[in-house]
């Protein structure tokens, strides 16, 4: 088990090297660069100086090697655009908000999605079932920003219940309602679907009938034999949902004027802020890798027949 985890973490390091290498290769070889200026171009000498300062005059694999050797020591460099700001400093300022948003969204959507999915499956084709599935389909099909438009129009513009934007957890908690709700609606829909299908399938199994026939109370059958078997598909869908939620949403952060890392990521690609882009790509890759590893380890907890070996 520990050997397995160690090997997987080692594999993750290799993946990080490959992903960072490819990203570097692409960033540094596409036409144009971060210091191109169309309006008032720098003189050739000045541009060469700026490029030398940021190592942009060297081949990309040299820059990549030096970046990696700094990064393992915790130095991710300085941003090209936010003058003289350490990447880590920017992260500390921006990521906290995105973490709050993602964590709060998961906090309501995961438990509620599983619970309502199970309830829908227990009474298939009932009014509850149709309602829950309808909301889940809307949540997984309609784009986040469209939902945001509808909700802002109704709740902020027409009924004036909620503010149109901002992120003030302590001063004005009403600002959190819409972003947290909308960010959670997609995971909610996905979990409803998987929990419902899982329970429906498990209830066709012989051991469920046997457990009921020997007089086991329904609730116990549901939790001990039913839910336990639905855990595996739920872990599978949660593995990508969690890192996704924790790295922010460019769209919702733009709409609700939240200073988060998702919005920053999009802006730094547009501005060719390579150190910022690289740091974000690495963080996202690490989170994904760890999340999938955690999922695989949790499989063995949920189902003892699963063995991790390679």
């Amino acid at each position: 088990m520990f050997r397995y985890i160690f090997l997987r973490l080692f594999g993750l390091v290799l993946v990080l090297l490959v992903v960072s290498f490819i990203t570097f290769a692409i960033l540094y070889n596409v036409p144009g660069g971060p210091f191109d200026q169309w309006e008032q171009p720098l003189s050739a000498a000045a541009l060469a100086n700026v490029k030398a300062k940021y190592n942009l005059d060297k081949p990309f694999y040299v820059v990549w090697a030096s970046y990696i050797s700094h990064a393992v020591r915790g130095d991710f460099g300085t941003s090209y655009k936010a003058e003289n700001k350490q990447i880590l400093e920017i992260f500390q300022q921006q990521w906290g908000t995105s973490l709050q948003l993602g964590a709060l969204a998961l906090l309501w959507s995961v438990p509620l999605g599983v619970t309502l999915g199970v309830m829908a499956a227990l009474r298939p084709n009932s009014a509850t079932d149709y309602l829950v599935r309808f909301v889940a389909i809307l949540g997984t099909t309609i784009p986040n920003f469209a939902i945001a438009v509808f909700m802002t129009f109704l709740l902020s513009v027409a009924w004036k219940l909620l503010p149109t934007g901002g992120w003030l957890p302590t001063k004005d908690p009403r600002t959190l309602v819409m972003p947290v709700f909308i960010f959670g609606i997609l995971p909610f829909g996905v979990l409803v679907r998987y929990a419902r299908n899982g329970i429906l399938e498990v209830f066709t199994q012989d051991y469920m009938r046997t457990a009921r026939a020997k007089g086991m109370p329904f609730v116990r059958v549901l939790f001990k034999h039913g839910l336990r078997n639905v855990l595996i598909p739920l872990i599978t869908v949660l593995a990508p949902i969690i890192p996704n939620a924790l790295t922010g949403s460019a769209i919702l952060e733009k709409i609700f004027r939240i200073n988060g890392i998702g919005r920053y990521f999009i802006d730094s690609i547009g501005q060719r802020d390579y150190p910022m882009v690289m740091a974000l790509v690495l963080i996202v890759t690490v989170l994904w890798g760890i999340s999938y590893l955690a999922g695989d380890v949790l499989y063995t907890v949920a189902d003892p027949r699963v063995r991790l070996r390679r």
Partner: protein
Amino acid sequence: MVDNGPILPAAPAKAAVSPAALAVRRFTRNRAAVLGLLMVLGLALYAFGVPLFSEYPATNLKVTSKLPFQVDGYPLGTDIAGRDMLVYLALGMRTSIVIATLVQLFVIAVSLVLGFIAGWFGGAVDFAISRLAEVWVALPGLLFQILFIVVFGPTVLNLVLSIALLGWPETTRIVRARVLQVRHLDYIDAARGLGAPTFMIAVKHVIPNLLNPFVIAISLGVPSVILSESTLSFLGYGLSESQPSLGKLVGVSWQYIQAYWHMAVLPAAFLSLLMLGASFFGDGLRDALDPQSS
């Protein structure tokens, strides 16, 4: 010679039902699927029909920033530049539909060719294509889409390419897997033994065999292509200023939502309807072509 008539008795009179007819029957009995098809057809008719009967791009600066039903002749109102929303939304929808179609055509072409080559020839080619597809999926998609647009410019072709670049691995895998399954069927071996060129075998014998899973994958992919396009446009990395798209209309109209809510709400509503229709249709098509799946 006298014709002695058939030696075998005539085939039973009951007409056999073809698999295609069965699929059509399953589709038309699925209410959500038919609704989805009608939604997509209706929206497409609107998107391509309405601009034919209007004087767009003439903007009417006498009638600017009007809400729906505020002035006669502008049932959906006008935007702040005086554009008739009824027409402007149709143009935006047309962009979304055209781009989604082009992306899927591109994905169809690329994944048929790559998937067939990988599955048919195997060996090093297969290894290269399969590993490339695996690594591709692990790369951060939005980063490369935005970078692509920033570097090469916001044209229709570049937008199509940047979205299609993310779509090909999955369908290529489906094609490859199916080619591997049918590669050594007797009649395909026979065709090869008779000396049929590989291209002919691919078109006449292999591709018909993988049509069902392929059509399902392509149609289920449509909503996510529309979502990709509208998200990029919403974030400001879509088409250039002169070409409206539903996502971009929402993005640029967001700031006016207090006074001119219709400028953001209407494109968002049309986009949602298009997504719902496409997704109902895709699900229905899957259930019709592959009844075991649900």
